[in-house]
């Protein structure tokens, strides 16, 4: 048997390990390296806080007393998780969207952000959980005592355990008041404890089945009483236990905490839907064998509730007993820690904070104060909850009545179940209905089950329990209205549930929900219908500016709120002070709040201040402070969405550009088609005339053939030009820049256009000066000059027509001006001439497709020069500019 010191040292080492794990996980989460901390497996394992010492040790005890009955405690949750699609999924989604922090918050939020329901649920949760926490302390101290060879006092042990747990919980449960109330450190530590529990119990089981006995058949051959496996167990109690344990997974504060609040990803539910049932399956697999071994191998007076420890000890396997002890230790600590976190959140959010805010109603509390106060109240609540548990343990001091406290606790929590289901599925469920249902159900629970469980030592005397108050048989706590049930649990369950559900339905039908309540009901019930249009609420513009400002300040921060309000005031023409509460102000505020807390809440808050609702301003301020916690989170989201917005706008821009390019391409193709069809028309028509006409005169025939020839040349030129444009525009043209004599190039161009000019009778005015070397591609430059000259000949048409060619050189640039004395180009057409296929005034001259000037400009730009049209009149004056050669050399 392990010595007392071994036990203590092991426990300390184990706790240190848990500390390290929690710390490590917390650090990783802070750095954003979640990894497997956020895996569905950690989530599944954390759900094992369901398995407390009551199930870890108690299941074996129950199996020894009632056979297979213990299975219900595990089958119930199995049922709930198999049905995750129906209830849990919706709960998780709603809680994510509404930033729900506890089961009290869930009901309060759904039933119109009601304070009263939050208080009621919190009180009930604390009341129902305290005995349960006490039970954990009791089991722990009991198991400690088992190993103590020196006379340790259980009370003292329990005190130190409670203090240690409080320290751990405060350390990792209230490190920060995070908006989402997720505690990575605690959850990870609990997942580790889950593994320890499973390994410990399975090891004991395997040792029993294969170490002590000779396989499963041998174990069941030792079954002391075959009645243990009879069908008697499958009666009303079986059904009741299934119902209670199935609802407990949702309603118990600690289960709601791990299953819903700590859920970081809805998809984890899918994994947990089978993995958690599998976990509890494994947990229950060896319960019966251990119980049988305890009943047959240990003295008859041995406590079945600690068979898990005493069976290995009895077999002399101290190491295994130590492991089993650690498993029980894990079961107790994880339950207490999570329950303390869940309850403290509820107590602090629904009781302490509203009270504190009410007391400081008229002092303008800045947001920082609220945060500090929130942390303080959480910590105080944790200590309070554990202290309550400890006191309860001391007062009842190891009484046997604690044994059934697990189920009593389950039924207490189950009183929330109808209201939760109503919250999720029945839009007609109202706040009054829910409060009435919870209070009446809880009353029946207390009267028919909780108080009688003290066997007449608390509030109700044994006589009252036996005969009813004042001897009224009908009011007998365990036989209400003459109903006879063998089992008080079944009796209390039936009556409390009947009263609870009837109250919810009847009172809800008789009462009217408030506006905010209707809004929340719709948001809850229709959570999966996506962006269901939110019910619009008429907004009365009677909000006081001060109230609005306070609200804005709490959520947006002082500076932002101040800026917004001053701006609005200025817009209203007020030099100082707060703006009038105009609809413009409320709308602006609502939009600004919506960015931080979502549109629905913002609308609800502002319209509440607007005097439309029933909730007090201080209540709203409380809501504001709760939502203030999520601002940081919102900011992160906002940043993300800004990035996304940016990307989207870039995409939109790119799309618009592509669209434009496609349109340009279409227009270009359409124009090309037009330009090609015109010469083709002449070619085809004359070709057909020649083909069909035998009676043509030779001169006529010759003329038609020459037209065909001329038009096909025009086609070829056109195709060349189109290719040229495409090559130049794609930057694929091979244009070299070499020293070129400008005079020689001009001479070449003039020589090429000389016949054209002669035919048009153009007078050329050009005096070649000193030769300049330019940096260009000679052929391309000549092409540009020819294009511009031909253009001048075609469109100039002065009387008499004249063209002036001049060269000017500044320091770095050379400018060639080619001007005509024609009518000039209208200012609105000056850019158009460089567009493809533009022919001003619809003048068509054979050989022009309207591509000459665009090509020329493109060439000049490829030569680091330009082709522009001088606005000066009277005629058209084109200027070709390019680099002089020396400068290029100097630049290089």
């Amino acid at each position, binding site marked *: 048997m392990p010595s007392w010191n071994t036990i203590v040292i092991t426990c300390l080492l184990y706790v240190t390990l848990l500390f390290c794990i929690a710390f490590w996980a917390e650090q990783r989460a802070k750095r954003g390296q979640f990894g497997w901390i956020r895996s569905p497996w950690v989530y599944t394992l954390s759900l094992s806080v369901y398995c407390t010492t009551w199930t870890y040790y108690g299941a074996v005890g129950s199996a020894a007393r009632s056979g297979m009955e213990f299975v219900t405690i595990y089958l119930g949750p199995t*049922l709930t998780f198999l049905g995750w699609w129906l209830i849990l999924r919706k709960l998780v989604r709603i809680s994510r969207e509404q930033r729900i922090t506890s089961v009290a918050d869930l009901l309060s939020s759904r039933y119109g952000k009601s304070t009263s329901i939050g208080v009621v649920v919190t009180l009930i949760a604390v009341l129902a959980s305290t005995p349960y926490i006490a039970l954990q302390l009791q089991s722990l101290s009991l198991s400690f005592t088992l190993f103590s060879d020196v006379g340790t006092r259980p009370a003292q042990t329990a005190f130190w355990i409670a203090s240690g747990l409080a320290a751990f919980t405060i350390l990792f449960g209230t490190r920060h008041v995070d908006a989402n109330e997720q505690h990575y450190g605690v959850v990870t530590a609990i997942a580790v404890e889950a593994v320890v529990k499973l390994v410990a119990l399975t090891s004991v089981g395997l040792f029993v089945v294969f170490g002590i006995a000779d396989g499963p058949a041998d174990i069941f051959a030792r079954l002391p009483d075959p009645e243990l496996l009879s069908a008697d167990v*499958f009666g009303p109690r079986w059904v009741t236990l299934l119902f209670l344990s199935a609802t407990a997974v949702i309603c118990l504060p600690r289960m709601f905490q791990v299953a819903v609040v700590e859920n970081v990803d809805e998809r984890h539910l899918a994994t947990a839907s089978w993995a958690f049932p599998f976990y509890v399956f494994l947990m229950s697999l060896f319960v019966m064998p251990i119980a049988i071994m305890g009943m047959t191998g240990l003295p008859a007076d041995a406590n079945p509730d600690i068979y898990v420890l005493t069976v290995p000890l009895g077999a002399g396997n101290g190491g295994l007993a130590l492991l089993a002890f650690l498993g029980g230790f894990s079961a107790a600590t994880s339950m207490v820690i999570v329950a303390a976190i869940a309850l403290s959140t509820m107590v602090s959010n629904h009781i302490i904070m509203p009270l504190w805010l009410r007391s400081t109603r008229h002092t303008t509390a800045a947001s920082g104060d609220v945060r500090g106060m929130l942390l303080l109240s959480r910590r105080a609540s944790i200590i309070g909850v554990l202290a309550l548990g400890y006191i309860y343990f001391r007062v009842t001091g190891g009484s046997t009545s604690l044994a059934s406290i697990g189920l009593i606790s389950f039924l207490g929590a189950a009183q929330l179940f109808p209201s939760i289901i109503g919250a999720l599925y029945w839009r007609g469920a109202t706040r009054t209905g829910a409060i009435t249902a919870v209070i009446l159900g809880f009353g029946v629970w207390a009267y028919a089950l909780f108080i009688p469980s003290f066997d007449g030592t608390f509030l109700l005397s044994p006589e009252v329990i036996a005969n009813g108050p004042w001897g009224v048989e009908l009011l007998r706590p365990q036989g209400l209205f003459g109903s006879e049930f063998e089992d008080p649990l079944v009796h209390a369950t039936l009556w409390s549930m009947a009263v609870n559900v009837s109250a919810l339905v009847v009172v809800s039908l008789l009462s009217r929900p408030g506006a905010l309540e209707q809004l929340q009901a719709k948001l809850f019930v229709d959570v999966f219908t996506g962006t269901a249009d939110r019910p619009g609420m008429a907004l009365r513009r009677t909000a006081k500016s001060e109230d609005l400002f306070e609200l804005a300040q709490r959520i947006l921060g002082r500076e932002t709120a101040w800026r917004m309000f001053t701006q609005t005031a200025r817009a209203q023409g007020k030099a100082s002070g707060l703006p009038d509460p105009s609809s413009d102000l409320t709308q602006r505020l609502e939009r600004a709040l919506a960015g931080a807390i979502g549109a629905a809440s913002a609308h609800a808050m502002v319209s509440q201040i607007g005097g439309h609702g029933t909730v007090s301003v201080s209540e709203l301020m409380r809501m504001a402070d709760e939502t203030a916690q999520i601002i940081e989170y919102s900011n992160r989201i906002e940043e993300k969405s800004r990035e996304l917005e940016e990307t989207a706008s870039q995409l939109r821009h790119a799309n618009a550009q592509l669209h434009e390019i496609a349109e340009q391409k279409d227009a270009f193709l359409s124009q090309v088609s037009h330009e090609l069809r015109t010469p083709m028309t002449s070619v085809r028509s004359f070709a057909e005339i020649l083909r069909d006409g035998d009676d043509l005169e030779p001169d006529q025939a010759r003329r038609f053939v020459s037209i065909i020839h001329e038009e096909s040349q025009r086609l070829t030129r056109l195709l060349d030009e189109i290719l040229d444009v495409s090559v130049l525009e794609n930057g694929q043209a091979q244009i070299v820049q070499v020293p070129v004599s400008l005079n020689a190039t001009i001479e070449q161009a003039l020589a090429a256009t000389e016949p054209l000019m002669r035919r048009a009778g153009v007078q050329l005015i050009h005096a070649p000066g000193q030769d300049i070397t330019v940096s260009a591609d000679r052929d391309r430059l000549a092409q540009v000059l020819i294009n511009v000259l031909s253009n001048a000949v075609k469109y100039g048409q002065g009387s008499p027509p004249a063209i002036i060619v001049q060269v000017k050189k500044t320091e770095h640039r050379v400018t060639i001006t080619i001007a005509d004395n024609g009518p000039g180009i209208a200012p609105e057409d000056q850019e158009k001439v460089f567009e493809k296929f533009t022919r001003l005034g619809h003048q068509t001259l054979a050989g022009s497709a309207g591509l000459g000037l665009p090509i020329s400009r493109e060439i000049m730009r490829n030569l680091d020069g330009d082709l522009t049209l001088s606005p000066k009149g009277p005629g058209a004056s084109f200027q070709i500019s390019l680099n002089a050669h020396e400068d290029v050399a100097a630049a290089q």
Partner: protein
Amino acid sequence: MSQPEDIPRARKRRYDGAVILPIFAAMLILPPFVGLFAVPVTVFGIPLIVLWLFGQWLALIAIARRLAHLLSHPDDE
């Protein structure tokens, strides 16, 4: 290989399955089905009722696992 218009129907079937599974499970573990094999018969030395309870439990877990997979991979066959 299913036609594209069959996919919503297949998904619908999975949703239905997710709703029916807990009902089916509840039926199995509630009386009278649960006590069906509470008879003093053993199989390989293990009482039939124990095998029945744990066996159906395991089967439900297996079905839940398959269903969870189907529900979280909606486009798989």
